[in-house]
């Protein structure tokens, strides 16, 4: 479903810093892949390039048969809107929207009928255990609850690919474990693929495959 071939990316002109060097990766439908690496190794850049938020210097990213690198910004945005979901380390719920409004945002952007969007939002919130907090604002939530809301938002439109950038980085061990279980369960439930970027070995262990990103590229690590 996602095929990356020979991806390179450098930042800066005069003293360019090579962030991604000849990165290749295949992710199949329903697969849960973890990418580890040191800070600054380019993990988040890789996610941004996959999502079409950044462009590579060379290489291909084929998502569901489409080479993402050949699309313009609007096409990449629409692809991301319809087929991808994002989970961030810092949750990034919009503070002026309620939890329910945050979660249904992708459905509204896609143009789902309001009644259907309301139903799917409610179902998603129940699935992540936040139905009771639907009308609350993000500032009233704990870190674990906020991340569950963020996962609900990322999956509510049933994306083919979920991109998760350090989703447990801001959580305590117990909350992190709950969030990972939820993430894993929901990905399976929606038959989505997931690329998880993490520092945490414990988090990586929940994946089907684990890769390490370094200056030499992406290398698979035994579980």
């Amino acid at each position, binding site marked *: 479903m996602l095929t990356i071939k020979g991806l390179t990316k450098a930042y800066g002109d005069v003293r360019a810093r090579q962030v991604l060097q000849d990165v290749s990766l295949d992710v199949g439908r329903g697969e849960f892949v973890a990418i580890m690496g040191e800070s600054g190794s380019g993990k988040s850049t890789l996610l941004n390039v996959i999502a079409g938020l950044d462009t590579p210097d060379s290489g291909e990213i084929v998502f569901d048969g489409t080479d993402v690198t050949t699309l313009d910004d*609007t096409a990449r*945005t629409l692809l991301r*809107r319809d087929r991808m979901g*994002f989970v961030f380390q810092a949750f*990034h719920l*919009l*503070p002026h929207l309620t939890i329910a*409004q945050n979660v249904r945002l992708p459905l509204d*952007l896609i143009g789902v009928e*309001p009644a259907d969007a309301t139903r799917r939002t409610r179902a998603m919130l129940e699935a992540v255990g936040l139905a009771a907090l639907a009308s609350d604002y993000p500032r009233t939530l704990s870190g674990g609850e906020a991340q569950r809301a963020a996962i609900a938002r990322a999956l509510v439109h049933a994306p083919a690919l979920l991109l998760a950038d350090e989703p447990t980085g801001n959580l305590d061990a117990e909350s992190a474990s709950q969030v990972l279980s939820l993430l894993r369960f929901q990905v399976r439930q929606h038959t989505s693929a997931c690329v998880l970027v993490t520092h945490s070995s414990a988090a990586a262990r929940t994946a089907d495959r684990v890769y390490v990103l370094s200056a030499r590229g992406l290398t698979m690590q035994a579980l």
Partner: protein
Amino acid sequence: MFSGRWALLKAVSGGTWRDHPGRLVLAVLGIALGVALGVAVHLINASAVSEFDLAVRSLAGEADLVIRGPRSGFSEALYARIARRPEVRAASPAVEIEVQLPGRSETIKILGLDPFRAAQVQPHLLAGSREAVFELLKPDAVLISRAAADHLGLKAGDLLRMQIGVDTIAFRIAALLPAGATRQRLAVMDVANAQWRFGWLGQLHRIDVKLAPGTTTAAFQKAIEREIPPGVLIAAPQAEAERGASLSRAYRTNLDMLALVTLFTGAFLVFSTQFLAITRRRAQLALLRVLGLTRARLFRWIVLEGAVIGVCGSALGVVIGCALAQFGVERLGGDLGAGYFGTVTPGLSFDSGVLFIFFVLGVAFAITGAALPALGAARRAPALALKAGDEEAVLQRLTGWPGLLFIASGLALSQAPATDGLPLWGYLSIAFLLTGAILVMPRLAEFVLSRLPLLRYPPAALASAQLQATPRQVGVSLAAILASFSLMVSMLVMVGSFRDSLATWLDGMLPADLYVRAGSLGVTGYFTPREQTLIKNIAGVRDATFIRTQNVFLRSDRPPVALLARPLAPGKSHPALPFEGATRLVTSRGPPPAWLSEVAADLLGVTTGALIEIPIANTKHTFIVAGIWRDYARQNGAIAIERTRYVALTGDERANEAAVYLDPSAATDEVSTRLRAAFGNAEGLEIASTRELKRSSLAIFDRTFAVTYVLEIAAVVIGLFGVSASFSAQALARRREFGVLRHIGMTRREIAAMLGCEGLVVGGLGVLVGLALGWVISLILIHVINRQSFHWSMDMYLPWQALALLAAALVIAAGVTAVLSARRAMTGDVTRAVREDW
């Protein structure tokens, strides 16, 4: 420790300003513009008044007292009596006439002097020019001031042509007055010559009196009290100058107030800029509190930031203001085009005291604008302020009660009477209303925005949600635009009402088909009885009525009031005038009727039915006020009496103006041509159709208000600065939000549309409240400020088209500004913003 604290302050404040220099520049410009306009208007006004004062003094010379008569003058026998008194060391008789210059729409002041007497009282006028003194005795000679020579492009030996009646006579310029004599545009001739040539034989207009040592002015005034005929004033030169300056006092005060309003708007800009800046930096400031910065010191820091903005803005404003003043005087004159000081060319003097006062005012306004947000930031508990989403909570303290109290006080103040002839309470009332509305705005925004529907279009829905979640921030950000827009609306309504009332008034005042004048300016243009008959007998003229205009002194501290001798309207017991309220029927046995303009009635403090004394032909006559009429033409007031009575009292059968009614079949142009031919195509004859007069009157009106339009536009520009600063600040603060929205699939265009929707709603809210507030302020301007300043009443007129255009322009500007702010905020890699902490 001291340097450490300052280093920290520099790092915290300086860092913010370095990151967002645009916001700092806008706040500084807001104050600078207000200070600049204040400085410019005040300097120009002060220079014009001081020049006027100088002009009066230069004519009075070393005189201790000036005896001044009305336009019709007084008997020269008075001079003989005054000059013979033992308390008088020297007395200089003079004829003072404004004479129309043929072919030019301006006059020159003729001062007819006795050169030998003038040498004792006004020695500087003819100083060092013995030949010139003897030249003056020749009947065709005149001396002109250097200002007049420069202005008219004349030199010694040239001819100076002047209008008398409808004829033109030429005088030879024998020499120029000495350089230091006067800066007025003035011509000097022998007094007897002036009396003869201009038809004032046996009459004088002024006597400048130099008292003998040991005589006080008060004692002398008391001693000659009985000798002074009615309608003739005796006053010190200083009082003369003050009387002249009082003419433009209300106009000057209004300009000063408008400039202060601009500064006031600038202060609101500092307020909203600082409030939003502090709201954005709440976590940073809270962290400093956590690290040990005391509440008082934090307050002082933020106020200091405001003071720095104030100092920079004020300094810049003073410099720009001085340049603007120089430009204004050179291009528009000392009265900024209003026509009060036409013959005076002021030189600008930069009073450092005044500049300092405006500098301090600018700093004080900026500090006041920063103090409220500073108080809020210092009071906020650091633990709460560190949490995301606290921005709106900070504003929860803003209740609506203080604002409502301000509004109520403002409405109450609007009912207070004038102070010393100026509507100071009225202006304070407007300041209170503005402040009140701005304080109420956050609550009002909360009330209105909570009712916004959540639309299906995602950018609109997100915009709606954003506004509903931050209504009080929206309210604060509207401060500057609300202040400027409401003032703009109020001025538009006031000026529109004035213009509309003026047009209606002109319809009432100009019932005839043609108006013929023997010179529109000056006092030497007139029609003799023979010429009046000539006009009546022109082919195509059905009827003609004649008006004689003189002036009379009613109060010693005020300029003279116009005395209009008019015929009664056909079949009526009063002249054709735009009366306010009912007129009074006058019986033949009681005092004769006089019809007072609103200004004259207010000056005398009388209403219809009151008895008044009017000095005509140096005798006081009792009249009954038979009606009060609206007069926009004569700012010092006017009294109309029957022409037949005027002729009976004075024997003066001349007329300045003829209202000509044509036969239905007569063509205006043809009658005009016949009239000109009948007067030998005299240069001094002015013929205008009613339509032309209306058009030129409205053009003069528009020119007079041009400066106020400039000040209004300046205020709105400052307001738009506020909106722009607010949107760009909010857009930058929301970069991470935009980053998240980009991650979940919103296009740049959709984010811009979201911001655009927010801008339209915020702009719309500001415009709606501004329209309502502007309407209330316009009521105060029309019924309080104008009435108390100029004593003019007017009917309310709402210029819907202009208001709708302005409102639409402002809403669109707000929307566009918001979109541009979004674009600016999304330049660079906005997706990286999500990696920063909220």
